[in-house]
């Protein structure tokens, strides 16, 4: 029998595709689930961080003597307490500044005390002598040749001459002949766009509990998207062996990409090492805004040509992303995503990675793609408006499909963009009448999805139940999906499988829960581990029956002789084989350790109706529909949840959310009152339609679904608002003052 078949096209699923209650559900509705800040240890201290009030300054001296003298203070650390030769030098500098502070909120000292009140009091006793330096927080200003420079060494060799030293790198993708393409067009539109930095806005602030002894052995409890990565980076920053640090992932209260790196963790470990006591650290909301990763703010120029019948002839995108004080803005991914939805003969997309005096950006759900889509999809909409063409029809006409060459290089395998567009065209939403002051927006979106290093262990128990160990933190219900896939594969009930996110000492390495990879990669690993276990179970049956292992097959949760030649034996059910495994050869576990490479890309089409009040400039989203290719929905309710959540984060980004810096370079809205994320009363129901075009790279056809859902909303809402208001909106967020200003400019 084949233990590695790909059968998503023909397979009739029994568990997969159902909607059982998630295994961690009762804990989460009763308050029992333990998140980052919910753990305590005997003798625990509280850690706190001193942060820079300046956007850019040289640290001339730090005097911690008064803080250390305060009763109840047990340890103080500064940069000198970390590994000077750390490989992750930028991560270290971001966690604890060295010679300079580079943004408002940059950490530069920390202490541990007997309780939070003493810790806060002690922070005020640390004396810092700063030499304040000129700063810059806007991406275009940071690129100007005379901009204040953050790093004297400047960018790498890819940066063209004449640009500021704040430009770290440049990238370029594309093919064909742009001049020829634009010459073929009946209409060419060129437009510039800007987007503000938005924060992931997870409701749980960063938190951890660290214990590190003088013997170099440590334990860390932390809310993170990837505890193996936390282990490796912390070990590097502290100069210790990675396996001497055991990291346990707590329940995680949202991440969206923002919990894929470290902030507090190495600091808490350093304080614990110095104090020889456990140290707990929890960020305040203002610290989360000031010092953890928002996404990039951007500035983009787009030029697209189209024929009268709606064929796109050429596309050019220039993307400038600031990524905060360190290199690594996701502009390369943004540039690759710009035209990913379209089959263009002539296309070019350029990206500039720019640093400035803001917190280091962190991944935010499909990093780079939502902004790129906002700019490109806005120009596509303008072309449709001016040429009098239907925006869905034009997108169908130009859609990327299997075999066409992607703007960033590869040829597309089987993809589902066209299917989402056809579903949009057929959807009742697309045909519904609009009310006064309302406009309808359409946008497509793309995300790569990721595989990544993955380890899974699936242990059978004597009573016929299964303990599945994974290393990818469960952010939105993935344990339910893992249980479903294991149950499906083994032919046992869903509730006979328990999935645990185990610590770093209990399993091989796992990449972070990012790139929409968990249901794809840990799911694939679970299926393969189950197949590994089934193979072993079949061998045990063969041994019991005294026949060749190849003569045994697995069906409906039982080992059966594979045919008449195998002899006449009663099938051995899973439970029976588990009960006897001690006598037939010992314990049985299935394993998977590899890096799956077949993550299927994902596309979506969103429809939105927005109503703009011309008096106030306020926008109300009145109807929203998400249509996305999931490949195969393992637990459809949580797939819908990903669609809805991504759409609503996009609504916030499009209409309200924005990092606002003053002239002094300080963040002016570091709280949920002034950085306003969508609340229940802002929104309508979010309709969803799951399209399933199987991914050949996954045994059941799964494509990641977590990120693509945030790609189309920015553009879809901008297109709806622009049509409703009768004026093209080119800057996000489209807050009421911006819409009023655009209306006034048009009237004036």
């Amino acid at each position, binding site marked *: 029998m084949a233990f590695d078949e790909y059968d998503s096209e023909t397979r009739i699923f029994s568990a997969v595709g159902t909607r059982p209650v998630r295994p961690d559900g*009762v804990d989460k509705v*009763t308050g029992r689930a333990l998140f980052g800040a919910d753990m305590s240890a005997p003798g625990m201290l509280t850690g706190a961080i001193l942060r820079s009030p300046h956007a850019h300054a040289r640290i001339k001296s730090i005097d911690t003597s008064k803080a250390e003298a305060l009763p109840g203070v047990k340890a103080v650390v500064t940069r000198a307490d970390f590994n000077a030769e750390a490989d992750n030098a930028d991560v270290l500098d971001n966690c604890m500044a060295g010679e300079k502070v580079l943004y408002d909120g940059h950490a530069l000292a920390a202490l541990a005390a007997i309780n939070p009140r003493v810790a806060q009091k002690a922070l005020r006793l640390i004396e810092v002598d700063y030499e304040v330096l000129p700063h810059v927080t806007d991406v275009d200003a940071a690129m100007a040749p005379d901009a204040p420079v953050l790093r004297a060494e400047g960018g790498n060799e890819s940066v063209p001459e004449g640009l500021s030293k704040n430009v770290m790198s440049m990238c370029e993708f594309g093919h064909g002949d742009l001049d020829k393409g634009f010459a073929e067009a009946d209409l060419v539109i060129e437009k510039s766009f800007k987007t503000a930095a938005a924060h992931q806005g997870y*409701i*749980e602030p960063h938190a951890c509990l660290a214990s590190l002894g003088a013997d170099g052995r440590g334990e860390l409890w932390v809310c993170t998207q990837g505890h193996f990565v936390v282990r490796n980076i912390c070990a590097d920053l502290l100069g210790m062996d990675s396996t001497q640090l055991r990291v346990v992932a707590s329940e995680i209260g949202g991440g969206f990409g923002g919990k894929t790196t470290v902030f507090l963790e190495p600091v808490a470990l350093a304080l614990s090492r110095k104090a020889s006591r456990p140290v707990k650290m929890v960020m305040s909301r203002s610290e989360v805004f000031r010092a953890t990763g928002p996404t990039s703010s951007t500035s983009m120029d787009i030029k697209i040509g189209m024929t009268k019948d709606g064929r796109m002839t050429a596309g050019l995108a220039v993307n400038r992303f600031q990524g905060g004080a360190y290199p690594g803005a996701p502009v390369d991914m943004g540039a690759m995503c710009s035209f990913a939805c379209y089959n263009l003969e002539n296309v070019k997309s350029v990206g500039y990675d720019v640093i400035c005096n803001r917190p280091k950006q962190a991944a935010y759900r499909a990093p780079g793609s939502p902004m790129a889509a906002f700019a490109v999809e806005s120009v596509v909409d303008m072309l449709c408006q001016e040429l009098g063409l239907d925006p869905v029809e034009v997108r169908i006409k130009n859609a990327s499909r299997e075999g066409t060459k992607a703007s960033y290089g590869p040829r597309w395998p089987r993809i589902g963009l066209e299917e989402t567009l056809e579903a949009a065209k057929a959807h009742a939403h697309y045909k519904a009448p609009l009310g006064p002051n309302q406009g309808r927006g359409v946008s497509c979106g793309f995300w790569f999805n990721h595989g990544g290093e993955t380890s899974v262990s699936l242990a059978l128990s004597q009573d016929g139940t299964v303990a599945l160990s994974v290393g990818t933190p469960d952010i939105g219900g993935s344990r339910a999906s893992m249980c479903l896939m294991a149950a499906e594969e083994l032919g046992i009930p869903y509730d006979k499988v328990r999935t645990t996110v185990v610590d770093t000492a209990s399993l091989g390495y796992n990449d972070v829960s990012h790139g929409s990879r968990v249901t794809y990669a840990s799911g694939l690993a679970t299926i393969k581990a189950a197949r590994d276990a089934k193979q072993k179970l079949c061998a045990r049956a063969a041994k019991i029956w005294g026949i060749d292992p190849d003569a045994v097959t697995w069906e409906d949760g039982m080992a059966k002789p594979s045919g008449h030649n195998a002899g006449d034996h009663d099938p051995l059910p899973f439970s029976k084989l588990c009960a006897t495994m001690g006598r037939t050869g010992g314990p049985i576990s299935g394993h998977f350790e590899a890096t799956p490479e077949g993550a299927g890309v994902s596309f979506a089409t969103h429809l939105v109706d927005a109503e703009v009040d011309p008096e106030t400039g306020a926008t109300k989203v009145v109807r929203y529909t998400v249509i996305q290719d999931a490949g195969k929905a393992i*637990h459809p309710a949580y797939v819908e949840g990903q669609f809805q*959540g991504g759409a609503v984060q996009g609504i916030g980004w499009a209409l309200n959310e924005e990092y606002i810096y003053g002239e002094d370079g300080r963040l002016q809205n570091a709280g949920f009152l002034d950085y306003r994320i969508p609340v*229940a*009363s802002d929104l309508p*129901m979010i309709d969803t339609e799951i399209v399933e075009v199987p991914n050949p790279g996954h045994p059941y056809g799964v494509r990641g679904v977590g990120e693509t859902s945030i790609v189309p909303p920015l553009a879809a809402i901008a297109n709806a608002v622009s049509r409703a208001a009768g004026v093209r909106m080119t800057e996000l967020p489209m807050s009421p003052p911006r819409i009023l200003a655009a209306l006034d400019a048009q009237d004036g």
Partner: protein
Amino acid sequence: MQIHVATKVNGDETEFLCDPEETLLDVLRDRLGLTGAKEGCGTGDCGACSITVDGRLICACLMLGAEAQGREIATIEGMAAGEALHPLQQKFLDHAALQCGICTPGILVAAKNLLEKNPDPTETEVRYWLAGNLCRCTGYDKIVRAVMDAAAEMRGA
């Protein structure tokens, strides 16, 4: 100098000592071991620490521990009756109305308080009542459906 406070938490007589500046949320979480209420902001903007005090819905981060003297406090830990989940808790599970689950305790406490005052809320009433409880994962769709469904069940509809 610490303050002695006598109160009732989820029906149990409870006494504690706290510093004058400690919030009720600090006391619940750090002194009483009731970590179901979460601190998402500490400024009353996110609702993750929603509890009721004498039946009134509040953010525990905005009240001092010392102010709990003589009051009756109800938290998420007191919502289920032993093994039996409250209908709202069951409907949140049935509708997949949570993803990460950090906002869930606060939203459940707030929703229960709504249904005690208004057993038959409209969708708009549910949305406005829950406007003080931030959820970043779900987009609120399944939360609103779960609350409406629980309300219907509790009415016997």
